[in-house]
C-alpha cells in the first residue's frame, strides 16, 4: 500500500512535467533537453521562496511564469539564432545548472520545517477530520492539481492558438500560409512546455521538501519515457484523451522504476534504471510501429 501511494505521488509529480514534454516532443517534434535544468530550476525556486516566507500555493504560478521565460530563451536560441533543437536545449540545461546553484546559494537546501501545499493548516484540518483519507492526503491534492492542469491544457489545445501550435508541428508550411510566424508559435509552445516543467518542479519540491542540484539529471528521459508510454497506451485505449494517457504514462513509468528497485536494485542504480527502462520502451514501441506499417 505504501508503495502504491509512493508511486502515485512520484508519478503525479512528474506527470505535469510529462505534459510539458508532450508539447515539445510530440506536438513540436522538439526533443527539449532544457527540462534537465528547468525541472530543478522550479524546485530550487520554490524551496527558496518558501524558505523566504512566500505562500506555498503562490510558488506554483510564479514557477510556471519563470519556466515560461526559460522556454522563451530556448526558443529564441533555436528560432532566432538557428541553433539545432537538441543543442539549444543542452545549452540551456548546462547554463541553468549554475543558475540553480546561484538561486539556491548552495548545492543542497532543505525545507522540512515549512508549510507546503501538501502540509499546511487548511489541508491538515480537512484531512485530519477524515482519518481514512489522511494517508492519501498528498495523492489527493496531487490528483486535483494534475487534473486542473490537464483540463487547462486540453482547453488550450482547442483554442485558435492551440490549434496553431499543433499545426506548426504537423506542417509548418501551412502555418506560414496562414500568415503566422512559425517561429513565434514554436517559442510559445516551448514557453508553455517549460512553464509546465518548472511548475512540476515546484510541486515536486514541496513533496520532497528539499532541493539538491543533481535532482534534474535524467528528467528529460523520464518525461520522454512517460510521453512514449502514454501515447503507446493511447493506441490500445483510444477513449482516453492523449493528455490523460500521458499522465497515466508517467505513473506507469514510476511504477516500473519502483518495481525494479523492489526487485533488489539499489536506489543508487536509479539513473541506470531510468536509462535502461527508457531504452526498453523505445525498442518496444518502435517494434510495434513497424508491425503496424507492415
Amino acid at each position, binding site marked *: 500500500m505504501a508503495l502504491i501511494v509512493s508511486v502515485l505521488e512520484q508519478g503525479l509529480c512528474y506527470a505535469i512535467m510529462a505534459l510539458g514534454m508532450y508539447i515539445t516532443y510530440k506536438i513540436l517534434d522538439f526533443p527539449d533537453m532544457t527540462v534537465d535544468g528547468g525541472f530543478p530550476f522550479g524546485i530550487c525556486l520554490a524551496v527558496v521562496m518558501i524558505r523566504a516566507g512566500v505562500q506555498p500555493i503562490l510558488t506554483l504560478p510564479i514557477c510556471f511564469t519563470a519556466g515560461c521565460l526559460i522556454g522563451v530563451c530556448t526558443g529564441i536560441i533555436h528560432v532566432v539564432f538557428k541553433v539545432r533543437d537538441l543543442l539549444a536545449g543542452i545549452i540551456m540545461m548546462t547554463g541553468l545548472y549554475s543558475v540553480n546553484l546561484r538561486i539556491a546559494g548552495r548545492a543542497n537546501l532543505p525545507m522540512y520545517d515549512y508549510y507546503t501545499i501538501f502540509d499546511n493548516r487548511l489541508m491538515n484540518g480537512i484531512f485530519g477530520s477524515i482519518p481514512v483519507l489522511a494517508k492519501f492526503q498528498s495523492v489527493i491534492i496531487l490528483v486535483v492539481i494534475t487534473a486542473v492542469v490537464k483540463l487547462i491544457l486540453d482547453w*488550450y489545445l*482547442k*483554442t*485558435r*492558438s*492551440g*490549434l*496553431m501550435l*499543433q*499545426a506548426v508541428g*504537423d*506542417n509548418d*508550411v*501551412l*502555418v*506560414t*500560409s*496562414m*500568415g*503566422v*510566424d*512559425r517561429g513565434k508559435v514554436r517559442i510559445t509552445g516551448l514557453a508553455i512546455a517549460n512553464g509546465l516543467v518548472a511548475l512540476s518542479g515546484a510541486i515536486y519540491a514541496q513533496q520532497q521538501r528539499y532541493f539538491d542540484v543533481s535532482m534534474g539529471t535524467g528528467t528529460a528521459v523520464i518525461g520522454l519515457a512517460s510521453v512514449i508510454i502514454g501515447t503507446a497506451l493511447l493506441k490500445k485505449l483510444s477513449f482516453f484523451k492523449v493528455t490523460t494517457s500521458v499522465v497515466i504514462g508517467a505513473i506507469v513509468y514510476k511504477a516500473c522504476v519502483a518495481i525494479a528497485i523492489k526487485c533488489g536494485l539499489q536506489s543508487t542504480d536509479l539513473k541506470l534504471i531510468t536509462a535502461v527502462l527508457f531504452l526498453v520502451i523505445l525498442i518496444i514501441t518502435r517494434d510495434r510501429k513497424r508491425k503496424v506499417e507492415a
Partner: protein
Amino acid sequence: MLELKSIYKNYNPGSVNEMCLFDDFNLTVPDGQFVAVVGSNGSGKTSMLNIICGSIQADRGEVLVNGVNISNERDYQRHRTIGRVYQDPSKGTCPSMNILENMSIADNKGKRYGLQSGVNHKRKDYYRELLKGLGLGLEDKLYTKVGSLSGGQRQAVALLMSTMTPLEFLILDEHTAALDPKTADIIMELTEKIVREKKVTTIMVTHNLRYATEYGDRLLMMHEGSVILDKAGEEKKNMNPEQIMHLFNEISVECGN
C-alpha cells in the same frame, strides 16, 4: 496589380556552381488576371513564385503589390493576402487534424490566433456547404483526419482552405502534378470555378500544356530565367498544346539536347 521589377537572382554565389537564374527579370500581372506559366525544369517558374511569396529573397529588384514594395516583408506577412497551393498535397493541410479543424484554421486566417475557441461550431454548416461544392463527398467527413484522405481529396481541401478568406493573389505551384489525370481534371475545374467566382489574380505554374492553353487569360512560357512567350486574350485562345510543344522542342534543340 503585381509587379516584379528588375529581379536578379544568383544561386550558389561565389562557388563553382554559381548559376545566374534571373538577370533583370520583369513581369506585370494586372488585377484579376489568371496567368498560366509553363516552362522546362530549371526555367525559374517556381523560383519566381518563391520570390513573389518571400520564400526566397531576390538578390536585387523589387516586388510591388499595388505599387507598394513588399520586398522586405517576411514570407508569413506576405501570405496574409496570398493563397498558395503546393504540388505536394500534404503541404496544404495538417494531416493529424480533422477536416473541421483544418477548415477552422483556414477560416481564422487574418484574425488573431488567440485564446478563442479554435473551432466555431456555428460555421460548420458553411464548411459543409463548401465541401459539398467539391463533389467529393467530403461534407460527411468533417471529423475524418485529413491524413487518411487521398491525395486528390487533400488537394481539394487545400485549395478550398487557401481560398476561404479574402485574398489578393492565388499562387498555384504545379498543384495538379501529383494527382492522377481524372482527379487532376476535377481539381482544375474547381480551380477555374474558384478563380472566376472570387475574381482573384492567379498565377498557375503547370507542366500540363492542355491546362495551360485551356485555362487562364494569359500564357507565359519561361526559359532560363526569362519569359520567351507571352500571349493574352484572343492570341492565347488561338494557342494549342501542339504549338507550345513545338516551341518546347525548338528550345531544347537550341540548348543542344
